[in-house]
């Protein structure tokens, strides 16, 4: 069984849609609606990625339009959209990936360690996502929130044999 097949037995699209909806509702309330599945969007220039190492290994990436990132930052920092800085955007999309990633991780086998988010915006150096032979996209969800696209991608990586330590041994 591949890592992707194994992941499909642990988590389906609906579970992740509900997680993302809960995260957005918790952070933004329901005033701008709840994220829901939509047609595939084009390239999304803003995003953040967290990695998980341990009993389950992979990466959770949250990408969105620049408009959504600025809108989200404006809402959470309680400022006008045109007052949002690149640092504000990186902070907010990083935290979105951290919270979505943490929720995904908590539903998967442990123990494992969650990395700090790596963010990318049009104004910053892109995050490096590991895409080697051993990595495959297990799930890609295209959603819409407040009329703007957001994409959650989950990548699985083969779990190393037990004899190979994969982390510092701490639970995050």
């Amino acid at each position: 069984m591949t890592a992707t097949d194994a992941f499909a037995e642990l988590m389906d699209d609906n579970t992740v849609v509900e997680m993302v909806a809960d995260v957005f509702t918790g952070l933004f309330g329901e005033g701008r609606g709840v994220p829901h599945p939509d047609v595939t969007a084009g390239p999304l220039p803003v995003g953040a990625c967290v990695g998980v190492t341990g009993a389950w290994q992979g990466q959770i990436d949250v990408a969105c339009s620049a408009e959504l990132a600025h809108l989200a930052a404006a809402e959470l920092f309680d400022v006008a959209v045109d007052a949002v800085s690149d640092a504000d955007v990186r902070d907010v999309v990083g935290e979105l990936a951290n919270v979505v990633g943490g929720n995904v991780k908590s539903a998967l086998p442990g123990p494992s360690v969650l990395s700090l988010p790596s963010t990318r915006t049009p104004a910053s150096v892109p995050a490096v996502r590991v895409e080697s032979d051993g990595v495959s996209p297990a799930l890609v969800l295209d959603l819409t929130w407040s009329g703007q696209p957001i994409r959650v991608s989950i990548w699985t990586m083969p779990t190393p044999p037990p004899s190979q330590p994969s982390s510092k041994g701490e639970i995050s």
Partner: protein
Amino acid sequence: MKILVVDDSRVMRQIVVRTLRQAGYGHCDVVEASDGRDGMDKLREEQPDLVLSDWNMPEMTGIEFLSALRASGDARPFGFVTSEGSEPMRATAAAAGASFLIAKPFTPDAFRDVLEPVLG
């Protein structure tokens, strides 16, 4: 009453402070720190009554922060506000001496439920 809020995300610190206010703790003084090491410094300077800390942070993680506190004999209430609320996480937090763990995303009710027994 003084609360130390420790999180490497500026926006999450703001959300935690706002939620404290919505939960009825707007009268408390709030001090912020950006990671566990900064939290140690602010704790010495400000002597808060409660620490609310993220887990996953650069420099010094939340669990390292808590462990250092308890190793120094500091027993003040310490709770985690973190993105994962699995049972292993909760068990690790409790074993290290945490009073509670709030998983993100959270509500004012979730804050009230765990803060009431600690702060009254």
